[in-house]
């Protein structure tokens, strides 16, 4: 068991590493300006000049996929980070203090989990409108309950353990115990949840942008590109393929990482 997990983890690390490297390089350099249009080279097939061909405006697809993957990655990362921070604080506090606030928040939490994530994201988009920042906001909000629930459970468990009791006896402040003593012990549990949430964020962003209610043009996004590419399935199948495969690689990498960490396969 252990060794398969390690192998899985390694595979995930390699895929994610390569994707990250490409994305990082893409931040400072892409073969072409991803938005530069070229009327002379519309829908060109993959070649040495254009690794993945060009789209209907003559834009270089490889550059766009790199930039789109970067945008999708950033949106997912920021929204997971936001959800994580708020969720940890909320879950930590309610788990530590308990009481009616805890009860209320957890009931609210249970209710929120009744909505499939894509549905909740769509509702939030309906409320706040589409666009890059609203997507981050909606997804961030989406992940708060997930993290809050896990942290609350763990904190409630750990606060009965000996090391916490002795810290209390020594007069260490609640906040310090909570965030300095307990939190580090929860990190391993959180890690795999982070990876799963990241995947859900990538899929949700791609889905919504595909539906046209997510990222707006000319902002790049893998989902939007997939939507645009659908018109050119016959004349330029590589367009749809390359944006789709980029999504798969992002999700696959983090999925393997999560499994390697011993997490579940699905959130």
């Amino acid at each position, binding site marked *: 068991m252990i060794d398969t997990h390690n192998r899985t983890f390694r595979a995930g690390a390699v895929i994610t590493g390569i994707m990250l490297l490409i994305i990082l390089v893409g931040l400072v350099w892409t073969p072409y300006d991803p938005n530069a*249009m070229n009327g002379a080279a519309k*829908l060109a097939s993959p070649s040495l000049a254009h690794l993945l061909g060009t789209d209907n*405006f003559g834009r270089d697809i490889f550059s766009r996929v790199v930039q789109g993957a970067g945008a999708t990655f950033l949106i997912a990362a920021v929204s997971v980070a936001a959800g994580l921070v708020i969720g940890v604080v909320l879950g930590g506090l309610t788990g530590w203090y308990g009481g009616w606030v805890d009860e209320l928040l957890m009931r609210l939490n249970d209710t929120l989990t009744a909505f499939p994530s894509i549905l909740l994201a769509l509702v939030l988009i309906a409320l706040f409108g589409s666009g890059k920042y609203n997507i981050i906001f909606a997804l961030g909000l989406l992940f708060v309950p997930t993290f809050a629930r896990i942290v609350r459970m763990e904190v409630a468990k750990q606060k009965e353990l000996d090391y916490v009791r002795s810290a209390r006896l020594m007069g260490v402040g609640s906040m310090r115990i909570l965030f300095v003593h307990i939190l580090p012990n929860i990190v391993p549990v959180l890690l795999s949840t982070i990876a799963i949430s990241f995947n859900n964020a990538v899929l949700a962003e791609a889905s919504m942008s595909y539906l046209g209610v997510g990222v*707006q*043009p*000319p902002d790049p996004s893998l989902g939007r590109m997939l*939507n645009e590419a*659908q*018109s050119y*399935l016959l004349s330029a199948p590589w367009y749809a393929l390359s944006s789709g495969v980029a999504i798969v690689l992002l999700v696959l990498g983090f999925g393997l990482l999560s499994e390697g960490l011993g997490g579940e396969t699905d959130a």
Partner: protein
Amino acid sequence: MKKRLFALVLALAMTVALCACGGDKPSDQTADPTNTGSTGEKLTGGTLTVGIAADLDTSLDPHVSSSSAGTREVLFNIYEGLMKPDTEGNLIPAVAESCTVNETADVYTYTLREGVKFHNGADVTVGDVVYSLTRAAGLETGEPLVGEVKGIASVEATDDRTVVVTLKAPDAEFNAYMSVAIIPQDVDPNDSPVGTGPFRFVSHIAQDSVVLEKFDEYWGQGAYLDQVILKVIPDPQTLVMSLRSGAIDLACHLDATQIANMADMTVMEGSSNVIQALYLNHDFAPFADERVRQALCYAVDKQAVIDLAMDGHGTPVGTSMLSTLGRYAMPELADYYKPDVEKAKALLKEAGYENLSFTITVPSNYASHVGTAQVLVEQLKAAGVDAKIDLVDWNTWLTETYQGRNFEATVSGFDSHSLSATGCLARFQSESGKNFINFKNDDYDAAYAAAVSSLNADEQTALFKQCETILAETAANVYLQDMSTFAVMQSDVGGFVYYPALYIMDLATLYRIG
């Protein structure tokens, strides 16, 4: 008198705008508006499925739904007016059999055609005509439902076949507006759309489909098809796919980028009779400054937009006038602002908007507008202008952007409601309810008013051209093009016709080829 009436409507030099630009285009998609693609026999009967990009408006009341071109082009098949346009750009009598007009062009007398029936089986009576015109002109409520006919002072029936319409002021072009629908006085059009057209409304399923059936008791040459299903497909990509897969038989209003790989289908190119522009809201502070608007005009290269977003199909324009309205068209204005990035920058600097940034609202169901907006953003970037795109669905565009006038700039297209120059120009009067860009120009209002009341055709044309020139000189909008459009149909479908100057989808002329 009669002769003059029919002559004044249109002088159409170019019946259908054909663009022969871009010699490197694939030749298997040659477009010829006169060849309807028929090689076999015209069949009578059958069903046709037509893809439409926007769902119909909430109300199918022909006197209300004047804002959405997509709805009007469907209603064209259901309703008719006293007059209707033909494919040559003339007005022909429809529910009326004939029309006479007095010397001062303020009294129009219509004789009803005999044997015209409504879809519910009732005969059309003078009562229905009086009711319809009274309703459309808002004579009882004081609120005209159809802006074009607000000039009507009174409508009365003098006998059971004659209706006399008296105008508040002379209007030689009045018949151009008489395509306003005649509806039965005892049926609420909100409940069931009942008209006299070649097709009868059967059903409308929200976001899905509209079913029309042939009206057997139509007074004229009726439809070939028994049934037409209009399938609502708001996603342009899906629309193209449905066409290619054979799920739909016909789609009009496709743009040049959407017709690739349609080799085994009939592709017809025509003018879409829509002026596409970056429409600017003059109430948005930066756009209140003429220099800023002019700067945008200099920053934009129309021909490059047409080349990139439309594969070179389209006619550049410089004002709000369709190129197919030959008498009024001013192609010379297309070059009024020659692309000049430095000049654009200088003007912006002078106006104090060096770091101008604004949002372009675009209806997402029109691929051509979305593509154009993307090209514009790139062009504006070169002049240091930061434009963002906000894609909205058609309903939102209609309510928020158009009716609510809550936008900064929008890429969209406007058609003409009638065969008169007023169809393009009326909306830019300061007080017009359709003046969604909040254009306010006293010279324009004066010239327009003078044009409408002029009885001399040449003088009238000159005044309308003056209006057009004002729109160009003050850079009312960043005018782009009179769009080319493509109708694509399966090879066993024929009879599609383009109407000059009007946004019309005539289903009655369509047939299956056997």
